[in-house]
């Protein structure tokens, strides 16, 4: 374990920070990579585990990247023009990202999400000025996808639908930014990339870039172990509408993660690493440890999609007494 002195070292001086940027959109990407020092559970000393903290994006999640890229692509192709509204189905983070990018560019945004997404997400989207349509919580994200299709079919000329599940610009965002960032931040030392799957955009695009740099980089996906789960944002592929951009054959491995293990990992990362992250990050870290434990040496990069503050009202934290959260 690193000494306190090493942990406290500050590589960034006040004079070395970036200058002002023209808008919030220029703050997307270039997220930090942090060493996971304590939550290692028997991983060999020669194996590094590095977490990519996507919560540092201005919209608070990894989804800022595809949201910006899909809207840029829509503008470039003339599919998004003044007078149109940006419409999509989302369980939260993509909605927040689209709402932020839409606000920054001056386009209205309308989002379809299951009514059981967290309160913080609903309120954040509203704070960016987006309109929300709620779908049946019993049908999960697939219900939102179907309702969104219906809304679009009724008024096709009114909307631009980025369609994160089937828009290759989603994966491309990660191919062009997340992948190169990780390659540079590890100085090419990455051996394994671990990420969760919601649309598949992150793992597809990042994985493709990394494998192009070094064919031996292993790309490992984490998904809920079962269709009935509580890891917000993730899909259990075997029981879901499979996204068009998801190509499972490009993965080296896929690990199923139990919701309760993911939640317990979130509690640990907060208390042992000083990183309060979202449920999907907990799932990602469970998978990263499983991968890392099998290695003698290597550099495992695990992508943490967001911070935990937007889940503090959810089941993970509230109402379960002795568990990680409060009893309010």
């Amino acid at each position: 374990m690193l000494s306190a002195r090493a942990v406290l070292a500050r590589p960034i001086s006040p004079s070395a920070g970036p200058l002002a940027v023209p808008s919030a959109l220029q703050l997307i990407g270039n997220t930090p990579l942090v060493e996971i020092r304590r939550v290692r559970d028997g991983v060999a000393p020669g194996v590094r585990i590095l977490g990519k903290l996507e919560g540092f994006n201005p919209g608070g999640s990894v989804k800022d990247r595809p949201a910006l890229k899909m809207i840029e692509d829509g503008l470039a192709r003339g599919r998004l023009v003044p007078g149109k509204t940006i419409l999509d189905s989302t369980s939260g983070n993509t909605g927040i990202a689209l709402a932020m990018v839409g606000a920054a560019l001056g386009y209205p945004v309308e989002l379809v999400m299951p009514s059981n997404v967290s309160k913080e997400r609903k309120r954040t989207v509203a704070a960016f000025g987006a309109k929300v349509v709620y779908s049946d919580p019993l049908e999960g994200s697939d219900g939102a996808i179907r309702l969104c299709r219906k809304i679009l079919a009724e008024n096709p000329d009114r909307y631009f639908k980025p369609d994160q599940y089937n828009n290759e610009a989603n994966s491309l965002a990660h191919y062009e930014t997340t992948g190169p960032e990780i390659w540079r931040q590890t100085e090419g030392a990455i051996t394994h990339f671990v990420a969760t799957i919601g649309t598949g955009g992150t793992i597809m695009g990042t994985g493709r870039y990394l494998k192009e740099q070094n064919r031996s980089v292993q790309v490992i996906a984490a998904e809920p172990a079962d269709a009935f789960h509580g890891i917000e944002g993730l899909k259990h592929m075997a029981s879901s509408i499979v996204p068009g951009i998801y190509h499972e054959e490009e993965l080296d491995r896929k690990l199923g993660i139990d919701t309760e293990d993911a939640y317990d990992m979130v509690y640990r990362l907060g208390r042992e690493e000083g990183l309060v992250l979202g449920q999907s990050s907990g799932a990602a870290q469970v998978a990263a440890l499983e991968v890392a434990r099998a290695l003698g040496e290597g550099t495992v990069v695990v992508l943490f999609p967001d911070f935990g503050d937007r889940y503090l009202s959810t089941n993970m934290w509230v109402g379960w007494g002795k568990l990680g959260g409060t009893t309010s």
Partner: protein
Amino acid sequence: MVQVKVPTPLRKYTGGAGGVEAQGATVAALVDDLERRYPGLKERICDESGQVRRFVNIFVNGEDIRFLAHLDTPLKAGDELSIVPAIAGGR
């Protein structure tokens, strides 16, 4: 009888039905009755210690049982109970 709304991922236990009926004076008794009618369902809702799994929400007439009396929440004929996973998916 209590009307029970079943989420899509659990409908494999109910023969595809999204709404079923069951009975019980409390949520715990109703979950046991559901298990008799649809074997395998209870294990998905409750953990080994018999408590509702953390990621499962149960609503009685729209109220979350975590803020009522958990599994001891009383039920009466005509109530509506919804089992809702804290899922979404695809961000």
